Each structure stands twice: as structure tokens, then as C-alpha cells.
């Protein structure tokens, strides 16, 4: 079953096509990777899916078009996301950050406290709840952001460069966490990542974007051995 289908999605910034005529499909339950050089349009694509910018073409989520919906509506449909730079609510506690997601993203949830507790345990933030978000370290910031996104009870999670600036140990923990989220919660994940090692470990399928266009798609092992992909990455 397809959870997300993009049809001829195009986004122009003035003359520049950040995403052009893009078609792809994401299967329900998989971890789908997106890679490509800087400026390939990866983050723009996330912004389109989550409703930040208007675009042409159509994006279909669970059989219904989400074109033209505002970000909060898309969240309520069941898509959550994280950001490349940890844009937390820095003046409030980690717990309140997560509560923000639970309260506004999953309004039908009766047992808010229970939900938050589960998620805190899942991502491993226990003990940090009362700390003000501005004061936790980068890894915990990313975890908080992820936890807040999960608190909206999404069926599709968009994760933007989750490992930037993390230590190898933290990267490993992240990889494990994504598997756990995917398997235990049954959440489909689309992940943008520039570390190919992570991609190979995490993804079921990988799509390479270049200049806003789909370059190739397939299993990660196969994709990274493609001659042209290597060229793109080495600036060929």
C-alpha cells in the first residue's frame, strides 16, 4: 500500500526550480531515504509535503490529496516532521516541548500524560523533562524535537538530517531509534541524510535528488554503487 504519492511536484523560486516535476511513491511501513548534494531540493521537498510553501502538482497522502492544506492541517492528517537545525521552543521545558506536540498535534488523544511518558521513555529523555530546552545538549535537542513530532501520533514522519554534528556513538543511537520507531510504532519514515553509511543501515529504499529532479531510486546498496551517483557526490 502506498502511504505517500508525489505527482509532478514543482516548486519555483523566481526563475530557479528548487523541485521540478518530481514523481515518487513511498510504501506504507518502509523507511525511505532522500539524498543528494547541497541545493538538490531535499529540504524544499519536506517543506512542500508539510505545507510550508505553495507548489504545483499534487501530493497524495493515504489516498487523499494534501495539496493546499496549511501546515497544522497536514499535521492533523498524520504527517510529522523534524528540522535540520534544532528549532525547539527554547524558553520552556523539554516536557512542555513534547506536550506541545501531544496537545495540539493529537487533539483526540484522551490520555495525554500517558502518551508523553511513553514517548519520553521511547526516545530516552527520562530525567531531562524539567530542563529548559535551551540548556540541553545538541543530541537531546534533536531527541526532544523528534519526541515532540512523535507526540502528534503521526503515521508518516519526515526527518531532516538527524545526525549532523553528532558523535559516532550518538549517530548509532539515532539509527537504532529510527528502527525502533519504525517497528514498534509502525511509523513510515522519510529521512534526509548526507551520511551514506547511515542511509545504508537505515533505509529500505533510497532516492537521489539532483537539481530538484529525481536522479535514481532503489535499494541503498545498489544506488550508492551507481557510477553517476558517485560523480554527483564528488562534484562531477
Amino acid at each position, binding site marked *: 500500500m502506498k502511504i505517500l504519492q508525489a505527482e509532478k511536484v514543482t516548486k519555483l523560486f523566481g526563475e530557479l526550480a528548487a523541485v521540478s516535476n518530481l514523481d515518487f511513491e513511498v510504501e506504507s511501513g518502509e523507511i525511505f531515504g532522500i539524498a543528494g548534494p547541497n541545493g538538490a531540493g531535499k529540504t524544499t521537498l519536506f517543506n512542500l509535503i508539510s505545507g510550508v510553501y505553495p507548489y504545483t502538482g499534487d501530493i497524495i497522502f493515504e489516498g487523499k490529496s494534501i495539496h493546499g492544506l*496549511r*501546515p497544522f492541517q497536514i*499535521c492533523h492528517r498524520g504527517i510529522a*516532521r523534524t528540522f535540520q537545525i534544532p528549532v525547539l521552543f527554547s524558553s*520552556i521545558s523539554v516536557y512542555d516541548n513534547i506536550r*506541545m506536540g501531544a496537545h495540539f*498535534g493529537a487533539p483526540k488523544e484522551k490520555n495525554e500524560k500517558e502518551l508523553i511518558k511513553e514517548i519520553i521513555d521511547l526516545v530516552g529523555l527520562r530525567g531531562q523533562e524539567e530542563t529548559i530546552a535551551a540548556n540541553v545538549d545538541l543530541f537531546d535537542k534533536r531527541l526532544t524535537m523528534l519526541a515532540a513530532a512523535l507526540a502528534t501520533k503521526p503515521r508518516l514522519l519526515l526527518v531532516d538530517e538527524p545526525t549532523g554534528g553528532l558523535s559516532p556513538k550518538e549517530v548509532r543511537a539515532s539509527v537504532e531509534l529510527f528502527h525502533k520507531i519504525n517497528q514498534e510504532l509502525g511509523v513510515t519514515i522519510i529521512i534526509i541524510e548526507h551520511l551514506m553509511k547511515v542511509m545504508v543501515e537505515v533505509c529500505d529504499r533510497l532516492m537521489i535528488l539532483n537539481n530538484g529532479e529525481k536522479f535514481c531510486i532503489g535499494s541503498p546498496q545498489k544506488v550508492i554503487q551507481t557510477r553517476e551517483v558517485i560523480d554527483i557526490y564528488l562534484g562531477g
Partner: protein
Amino acid sequence: MVVSKILRKNAFMLGALLVLALLPIALRGNAHVLNILSACLIWGVVASAWDLSIGYASVWSFGHIAFFVIGGYTGAMTVMYLGIPPEAAIPLGGVAAAVIGILIALPCLRLHGIYIAMVTFGVHLVLSTFILRWRDYTFGATGLSGFERIQLGQYVFSSSVPFFSYYVIFGVSVLLLFIIYRVINSTIGLAFVGLRDSEPFAKSLGINEYKYKLIVFGISAFIAGLMGALYTSFYGTVSPFMLEVSTFLMVLIMLMLGGLGRFPGAVIGAFVITVLSEALRPLVLWRFVILGAIVITVMIAMPQGLMALPQTIKSFARRVTQRKQIKKDSIKTSSI
């Protein structure tokens, strides 16, 4: 157990409330001082309502003095022309301001920062024209006065009956400040903070920013308008002079001096500025020069505003002790 916890947690506010409640008795009804205290409370609430918008939701509305004046005119005019009892006219002033606030919020939904400031300030600028043009009812620049006041037995709510009126204002102010406090600590307040701290993330977590913009305009305009009607009733007059830049400037200074988004900082700012500006009155022309200099000095010394005073003092103390410690250490090492 629970009671004592609440007491301990809010010791500062409760202490301040107690002092404010007892002060008039200590002053033995000194009219001048009581009226100054009443003005402090009124501006404190107005500044706090404004803080809800600027400090908490980060919606840079510059229309709050306009809402205040709209409330004032509504209060006075409904009493004068519709014969509504003055007690009812005061909340009506709030309702009118809230309706206009929400109407103004509509073109502001898609705007940010300084662009919202301009649209709302535009309302401030246009309001005086509207009042002047609607001369038959508003009496233009002359303003309104001589309308019916709230009466409770032999007591009239007026600045000439300061003791009674102070407690009316005190009651209304405490009630409204409590509402503001509750809003800040509710999920509405949480949404405001979310949109302030990181709007894109807040939106992606399911917060409808349009809805909360409308809410913040509605609540803060309601409180400002209600206080405007109360102010008008208290002083018995309202005129477009209230829309002069000086009022706007002073309330904004009260708010920012107290500290943005640090309830009840705005109230403290209002007390400090109102009392200072009265205390400096004998300096005549130099009064506002000195007041301006004080504001600048305080902000350079304490950039977080007065509400951050405890932290500022503590961090200063920490630095001093650290320096002492370093000195001691260096002495120790050198002696060895």
C-alpha cells in the same frame, strides 16, 4: 499541605497583593497618592495585556492604546446615549475593543513582525481622525465628560473618591491579572510561546497560527478595552489626547522595562515608571529627560528588564565570589 505549597510558590505575588491591599489604610486616604496607585494598577494591567501579545505571542501589535481608547469611548458613549448602566458599560468597552481587535487581526494573519506593527499602529493613527470626524457624538477634540458614574450606595467610582475607587480598581485589576496569569499558564499560553519560540516547528506540530493570532488579539484587546472603559469612568473623561505618542511611548516603556514575556514584569514596570514620573514632576521640563536617562541606564545595566533582577543580582554575586575564589586560589598557590 497543598495550600502551603501554593503559598510558597507564589509568595512574591501574594506578598505584593497584601501590601497593595493594605497600603491605602496606611496612607490614611491621601487622595493624591491613592490616585497615583490607581493609575499604577490600571497601566499595569494594560501593559500586561499588551505583554500577552508582544511578549508571549510575539505578535507585535501597536494597537493597544487604540484598543484602550476604543474601550474608553464605548464605555462613555453607551452610558451617555444608550442609557446603559455604567457597571455594564465597562465590560462592553472590552467587548467593543475585542471585536475591533479581531477585525484588525484579520489582515494581520499573513503578516509578521514589523508589518503587523504598522497595520495595528495604522489603526491607532486612524482612530483619532474617526473620533474627530464623528464630532456629533464624540465632541471631537473636546472629548467626552460628565457622564454617569458607577454608584454603590453613597460611594461614587471617581478619582475624587479615591479610597473606595482604589479598591474597585484593585479588585478589577487583580481579577484581570489573574485571568492573564491563567491564560499564560494554559494551553493557549503554551501555543503562544510555541509560535513565539519557533513558528515553523509550532505549525508542524498542529498549531493553527491564525486561530491563536485571533485569540491573542481578542483577549488582549478585550482587557485593554475594559481597562480603557474603567479608566474613563474613573477619571470621568476621555479625549483623543490619549492617542498622543507620549501615552503610547510610556506604556511601551513600562512593559519593556518590566521585561517582555515575564509576567508580572509589566506590572512592576508600570509601578516604577508611574511613580518615577510623578516623583520627577517638580523637575518640570527636565522630568522626562531624567526619566529617559534612567530607562536607558537601567536597560544597559540590566538588559533583561526588572523581572530579571534576581537573576542579574545572583549572576553578579556569582561572578564576584568566583573572582574572590580565584584570588584566594592564586594567593594559595603563590604562598605555596
